[in-house]
């Protein structure tokens, strides 16, 4: 129960932060990414503000045995850089720079009921579902062939 409350409050704070920062305004995001046009560097400061607050907690979490209200940290362990990481980030960036929405601001903007936010979120969820359909099929093939591979 405590953890769900934390998740809920964190969601509210995250959304308010996105709205105040300008991230929910696609034109503002495009202004930040438009480095050859009338560049607006504001959104670099969103990242600076977020990392400035989070850095100490993130570094603490690398040494701490467990979080305060849960049994264990559930964190990404991988350290290798592979093609999927770079290709995925590249595709994400192409979509982000095209519409000016990344996932968080798009979801928060659903409340505004604009056609742009609604269309973006519907197709974003479709894109996620397509990925997991492919990934699921890959996992099944990998399991079928475990006897012949290492």
């Amino acid at each position, binding site marked *: 129960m405590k953890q769900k409350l934390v998740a809920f409050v964190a969601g509210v704070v995250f959304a*308010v932060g996105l*709205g*105040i920062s300008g991230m929910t305004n696609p034109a503002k995001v495009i202004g930040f990414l438009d480095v050859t046009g009338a560049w607006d560097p504001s959104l670099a400061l969103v990242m600076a503000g977020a990392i400035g607050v989070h850095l100490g907690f993130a570094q603490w979490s690398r040494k701490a045995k467990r979080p305060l209200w849960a049994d264990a940290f559930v964190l990404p362990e991988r350290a290798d850089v592979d093609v*999927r990481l770079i290709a995925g980030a590249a*595709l994400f960036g192409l979509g982000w*720079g095209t519409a000016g929405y990344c996932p968080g601001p798009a979801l928060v903007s659903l409340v505004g009921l604009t056609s742009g936010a609604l269309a973006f979120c519907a197709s974003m969820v479709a894109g996620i579902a397509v990925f997991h359909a492919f990934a699921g099929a890959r996992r099944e093939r990998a399991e079928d062939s475990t006897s012949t591979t290492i």
Partner: protein
Amino acid sequence: MAFTPVSALIGGALIGASASMMLALNGRIAGISGILGGLVRPQRGEVSWRATFLAGLLVGGVLLALAYPSALRAPSATPIALTVLAGLLVGFGTQLGGGCTSGHGVCGISRFSTRSILATMTFMATGALATFVVQHVLGGKS
């Protein structure tokens, strides 16, 4: 767009506070694409906290709509067909690359993750490329 350093820093600090609550109390990464991905492909024990986080995002959206309505009603200048294509790319790409602006850009960089630093450099670069093509090549802005 006007340079808005103060609101950007305050908003960013709130995002950092949210990510810190999730990490310090729940031991979780506040990565929106990861949280959403776990709802599209649900696994036992992994649904309810994600759903409550998402509900919090929407309630936060309602608070914004009441206090600061212009934040959510900014008209998108992007044609709807391009918006749909962009959503597909963002959905697929964030799952393939394991994160977005929050998971890689804020949480991963704060953990000094090499993967997240490279992912962030990559999506910033392709984001700028897509903006250049859409705004200046297709859109005819000088």
